[in-house]
């Protein structure tokens, strides 16, 4: 449960960081502002979220296998 919770909270943290970056980029009223580019942030965040989701699903399937093994005992 602790690992599941930490995965969820990591997602929340990433979401906060994303919102900050996106807002900063928009506040400069330009789509391209040197290093911050809104479209690129979207792709990076999608990538990070998908990796986090993949790891979470792997973890849940692993737990499920262990529980099944315990039940079969």
């Amino acid at each position, binding site marked *: 449960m602790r690992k599941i919770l930490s995965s969820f909270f990591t997602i929340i943290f990433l*979401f906060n960081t994303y*919102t900050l970056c996106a807002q900063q980029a928009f506040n400069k009223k330009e789509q391209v502002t040197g290093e911050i580019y809104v479209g690129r942030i979207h792709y990076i965040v999608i990538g990070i979220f998908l990796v986090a*989701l993949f790891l979470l*699903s792997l973890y*849940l399937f692993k737990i499920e296998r262990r529980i099944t093994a315990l*039940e079969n005992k």
Partner: protein
Amino acid sequence: MRKKWWKILCILLLAATFVLGFGISVPYKTTLQETIRNYFFHPALWVVMMVLFTTSFVNSIMVLRKRSIIADLRAAEFGRTGLVFGVMGLLTGMVWAKYTWGAFWSGDPKQTGTLVGLLIYAAYFVLRNSISDDEKRARVAAVYNIFAFTMLFPTLFIIPRMVESLHPGSQGNPLINPSDIEPKMFIVLWCIALPGYIMMGIWVTSLRLRLRRIEEKNAL
């Protein structure tokens, strides 16, 4: 519940939520800007929380009617997962508030009401852990769970709507203004994000429930 297909579907739906949530074009609103994308995450978490709490509430009624210990376990585990989703809803709301209202916590009636509602629910677990006798714990916890579920309505829905609030939905305003949201956003939220989150909630709860049953068997 042990079939694999719906769990894979859950992962695919959540992946689609993340891709579409950050990928599709959204209407430009001066105050919301890119934070409008939180629409795909924040409201869905509340709906899932209510679904899980309702399941917990129904199981608590079954405890009182049939004196079922299994129903008590279900009520506890659905409540626990619901609380996690509730905390996540509160956190995503705070992030949204920071970039639209100016602060993570501004003492808004909606925020305060939500916190009170969640704290009342959190006390359910404190109460459960304080009683050692199984049958007594099941009965007392079931009664408290019914109270905590009922208290969600005034704290989350009734009081914040009656007073001035920065949160949409107060004083007769719509919770979601159709002019702010495009139809495709509705589709992503209701047809992709929501089923995905609900399945994730049920999946986590079912795992915890199976684990608890093993623990109960070992304890006997």
